[in-house]
Every structure is written in structure tokens, then in C-alpha cells.
């Protein structure tokens, strides 16, 4: 997965402290930030001449504008980026992928991971498994032994084809609503214009909430120390530990 190959996830979530702290731009921190940025988006690190040009341009910019590329790193956009990377690397066969896992890896805290995963699962159509397109089904169709040679050839050819086909698919696949919202850049509208983001009802006025036991549904008083789920009694705690404590968190 993305998180295991790349830099640890904490720098991705905290909004660029190296840039914010510097009043006089520090070249080394900018360099490291730039390399992190390019490695995130799978660009090759630029040659030194380009680097020099980049830093000369950077001198004139304000801190606000420098934050721009890193705006993408905060909040849900990280999840989105990681989801994209996850989708790009997965095969196109139908697999029961816990899509909760991808989103859950965004934060380091177990409890918030589990909570975020549960809330995101409320929005999906297909209960957490990826549905492959119909035209990719013939990849898994060949089962015979005599087609073993054909399969090898097919797998070699299909590997090449799927990389290209995946690029094509990624381009013409319908973009999710979250991507569209981000592109529309609704924050740049003046405050008197109503928009999708401003219409959200916002947090509740009182932070008091009821907790329900995740096992039986009645009123819960106790919390699991490992994952933060609530339970009501000893019996429910046993069930929770046996079956689902940290089940969908890596």
C-alpha cells in the first residue's frame, strides 16, 4: 500500500511546518519539501538546473502561495490521493477489498481510523468490495491447463494491455463527487454567495452524545482500550474482543 512504501504518514497530515516556520526562506527545508512533493506525485526529482530556477522563483512568493501545493496534503485530500494510488496499483479483478482500510490508514490514531472508516462506509453503494468492469472479466475466465501457455502469453500481453488500459480507464472513469467539488474550488467564492460547502449544517450545538454498545445496541458505558468502541457489559466485551476489535485496521 501507499503508506508502507513512502514516507511515514504523519508529515502528510500536518500542514507543512517547515514552510510556515520560516520567515526567511530556508533552502534546505524547501528542498526537502519539494522532493517530498515530487515523490508524492510520482514525478522524478527535477534536474539541478530546474531546481535552481525553482528556488529563484520561490524567493518572491509569499508564504500563503507557497502553501498551495501542500493544501492538497491536508484532510480528506490525503485519503483521496491514497485511494487513487491504491486503485492504480490494484489489479482489475473483482476482489473483496475492504475499502474502509484505505481511508482508515490516513490517520495514525487507531480510534480515529476506525471511526472514519465506519462513517465512510455509510456512503458506499456496494458494501466495501470493488466491482470490476464487465469487459475485464475475461481475464479470470481461463481455467484449463492446455491454455496454460496461452494464459502465460495472455498474462504477458494483458499486463501491457492493462497498464495502458488502466491509464485510459482512469481518464474516462467518472470522477467522484469529491473530486469535482475540489476542482470547483468553492472556497474562492465571496462569502455572500451560497454554495454546497456553505449549505452544510455544521457541527451540533451541544457536544453531548449518547453511546451505544456496538455488540448489542443498548446503552454503553465502557470503552475498549485498543480500538475505542463502546460496549455495555462483560459479555459484550468478550464478543467484541473475539470478533471485531481492530478488525478493519491494519
Amino acid at each position, binding site marked *: 500500500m501507499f503508506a508502507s512504501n513512502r514516507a511515514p504518514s504523519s508529515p502528510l497530515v500536518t500542514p507543512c511546518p517547515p514552510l510556515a516556520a520560516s520567515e526567511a526562506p530556508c533552502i534546505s527545508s524547501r528542498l526537502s519539501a519539494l522532493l517530498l512533493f515530487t515523490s508524492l506525485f510520482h514525478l522524478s526529482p527535477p534536474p539541478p538546473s530546474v531546481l535552481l530556477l525553482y528556488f529563484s522563483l520561490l524567493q518572491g512568493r509569499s508564504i500563503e502561495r507557497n502553501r498551495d501545493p501542500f493544501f492538497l496534503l491536508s484532510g480528506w485530500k490525503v485519503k483521496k490521493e491514497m485511494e487513487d494510488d491504491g486503485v492504480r496499483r490494484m489489479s482489475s479483478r473483482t476482489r473483496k477489498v475492504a475499502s474502509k482500510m484505505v481511508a482508515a490508514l490516513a490517520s495514525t490514531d487507531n480510534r480515529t481510523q476506525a471511526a472514519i472508516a465506519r462513517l465512510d462506509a455509510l456512503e458506499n453503494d456496494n*458494501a466495501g468490495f470493488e466491482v470490476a468492469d464487465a469487459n475485464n472479466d475475461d481475464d479470470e475466465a481461463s481455467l484449463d491447463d492446455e491454455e496454460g501457455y496461452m494464459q502465460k502469453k495472455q498474462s504477458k500481453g494483458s499486463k501491457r494491455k492493462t497498464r495502458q488500459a488502466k491509464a485510459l480507464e482512469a481518464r474516462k472513469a467518472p470522477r467522484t463527487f469529491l473530486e*469535482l467539488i475540489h476542482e470547483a474550488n468553492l472556497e474562492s467564492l465571496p462569502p455572500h454567495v451560497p454554495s454546497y460547502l456553505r449549505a452544510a*449544517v455544521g*457541527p*451540533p450545538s451541544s457536544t453531548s452524545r449518547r453511546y451505544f454498545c456496538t455488540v448489542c445496541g*443498548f446503552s454503553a458505558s465502557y470503552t475498549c482500550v485498543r480500538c475505542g468502541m463502546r460496549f455495555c457489559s462483560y459479555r459484550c466485551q468478550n464478543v467484541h474482543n473475539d470478533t471485531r476489535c481492530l478488525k478493519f485496521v491494519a
Partner: protein
Amino acid sequence: MSATNVVVLDNGGGLIKAGFGGERDPAAILPNCLYRSPASKKWLHPHPLPTTTSTDSAASEPDLTSAAVRRPFDRGYLINSDLQREIWSHLFSSILRINPTQSSLLVTEPLFTLPSIQRSLDELVFEDFNFRALYVADSPSLVHLYEASRRPDGLVSRAQCSLVVDCGFSFTHASPVFQNFTLNYGVKRIDLGGKALTNYLKELVSFRSVNVMEETFLIDDVKEKLCFVSLDVPRDLRLARESGRQNPFRCTYVLPDGITYTKGFVKYPERIHNYLALKDGNGGFPPVPEETKENMNPLEMAKLPQDRNRIDLSKNEFDLTNERFLVPEMMFHPANLGMNEAGLAECIVRAVNSCHPHLHPVLYESIILTGGSTLFPQFAERLEKELRPLVPDDYHVKITTQEDPILGVWRGGSLLASSPDFEAMCVTKSEYEEHGSARCRKRFFH
């Protein structure tokens, strides 16, 4: 163009309601998705829901267990116009049987649709289907129009102002409407709708009894038949712990096994409404009437075991006790789930507060509930109970439910389509081709 040439299409995230302008009921209510059984590889169109006029038998219903679903809507907005085109072409050619080139279209769109989505809808209508003219409406103003016309001397039509609470499939909006215009700045949205409720119920049932995570249509059915809104949650939670006959909530649902029956059903349908006896606050309930042979249908009689209160695991059933009222409870308190959003009552209060102070008393007195998710029993009473403490004393709170919340928006659209100046309000195809989508959209004021 006469009114019968206008196709009124309420394009919702869950169901499409389609029909002709001027009629009382839509000709077809179709789920807005493509589904695929796990056995087959083709994506199929679902059958339209049986309307009140047709007497469709259940034998023609396809088997919907474990069906995967593809929807053109995501979070309430149309993002996949290819899929929508397929669904619409099936709708127009096989179900409604119209010729788009000779008709105009009235379509509903959610509020705050992004310009890119609006553009793709316009392209779909004019370039793929070649409709003659188009009018895009938003749901709250249509609901207001319909309600005002139903009661010409009521407050809604005299003051020309109301607060429409639309609890739909993807989200819930509280929108103030004034003089048939939705006040955009006052609209407040909760990101919970029928889809989230169904998914939550799936999660609860899967954790506690049978794994139903893939059975969207089945759990939809369970939710519609068994869930209700509780008026007093702590008391109901206490009562739900009881066992056997003392528990007024326990209901068993039988899953289909594909051989004898393909649709699920509730095991003892006469017990569904036992909780209603709790309303007068005495905590007891009337004795369950003796189950005579005439009350049960032949299916139940065939498999009546000796001890009928035991769950028969071989038949794939599951019990629901507190889930029945905890699922709709989510709409009133999303914080109980961990969501950082206010509940329905606060949403209404915030929507009203963002309007001019002179409108507040009128808005509170004309709250209209619409949308499929308001069909839970006791929904309006609970909402009034929650809303009353939040509203200043001297304002009157009155909540009206529509007679058919699912068709409310469609009926408003049909009314609008049959009004005499409808054709002047539309955008024709030639205007679209000349000016483009963005300028034509400015005529619709939202």
C-alpha cells in the same frame, strides 16, 4: 405544444419518477441504478415499482438478492452521465414510450449543483436525446407549489412562504421557499439520507446476526417495513431488553432462500405495530390477538413450528429489537454515530434563522415534510417534540406531512408543466445551441 407533451422527470438519487405533465401520478417509478446478480455478468435495468394503478404480480419480479448496484448519482449529484443516459434511454423507449424530439422536458436537480454537472445534464438532454425544450427546477419550490395549490386558503398559499424539509436518498435539506423561489442562502443540508440509513442497518444486522452487507434491496425492504421512530429513546431501550412477550419490539424477518420464495418477508406481520400501544405512556401493551388461521397467509401456515417463538437458524432469519428505532434515530442525532453534524431539529432552526426575522413565525408555522425517509411512523410527532424546545415560545410550530412524500416533488412538477406560461419559461434547443449552457442556465435563477 399541449401539456401532454411535457415529460416530467424527478431525477432522484434513489428513484426516478417519470410521467407526463398534467397528470396526477407519474407513469413510472424506477430505481435509478443498474443492478447485476452475482450469477450473471450483465448489468440489468430494474423493474419499475408497481404504482397504485397497476396490479403487478410479484411473480415477474427479478431476484434481487446479493445484487451489486451501480448508480449514476454519488452523494446526491449526477456524476456519471453515461450511466444516466442508459437508464433514461431505457425509460423513454420501453417504459414511457415517447419520442424525445417532440417533447419538452422538466427535470429536477438538487440545489447547489456544480456548473460542470449542470453542463453535462444539458448536453445529455439536448445533444443525446434531442429534446425540444428544457426546464430545470429544484425540489423545494415544486413541493411548495403543490402544497399551496392543494389548500388555496391555507397559510402556505396566503403567505406564499414555507419551509420544505426534504429527507431524500442521499441527503436531507431544510429549504425556506418564498414566493416560489428557494432562498439559497438559507438552505441547510445534513449528509444523511435513505442510503446511509440502509447502510447503517446493514452494518448492525451483519454484526449481530446474519451477514447482509451485500443485500441492498433486501435491507431496504426491512427498513421500510420494520423501522419506526421512537418517541422516548431511554424508555424504549429499556423495554427492548425484555425477553419474549414483554418485548413489544421484537420482530423476525425471514430471508429468501431462492427456492420457495425470492423475496424476504416479516415472520409475524401482526406484531409489527405492537409498539404503537406504548404511545399513551403506560409502558404496557394490549394482549396480542390470537393468531387465527385466517389471518396468516398460506406460506406461514406451511412452516408453523411447534414453538413459534424460537428463531429457526436453518431458515436464515434474524431478529430486530432496538435496531428498529435506533436506525431512524440517526437522523435526529447524527452525533450518536460519531458524525459531526447537527440533527434534523437543529438543521431546521438554523435554516430559519438565516432568513429575515419577519419570516421566522411564518416559516415555523408552515413546515412541510417530504421525501421517502419521512415515511417512518411517528416521524412528524418526534420532530415536533424535538423542535418545540428550540423555537421561541411565541411562535407556533406546525408540521404538515404530504399525502405521498415520494411523489410530492413530481406532482409539483406536473402542476408546473401544465401551467399556461410554462413554455415561455423553458430553454429551447435552438437557444441552447446559440448561447451555450451557462447563459441558458441563468434563466432558471438557481
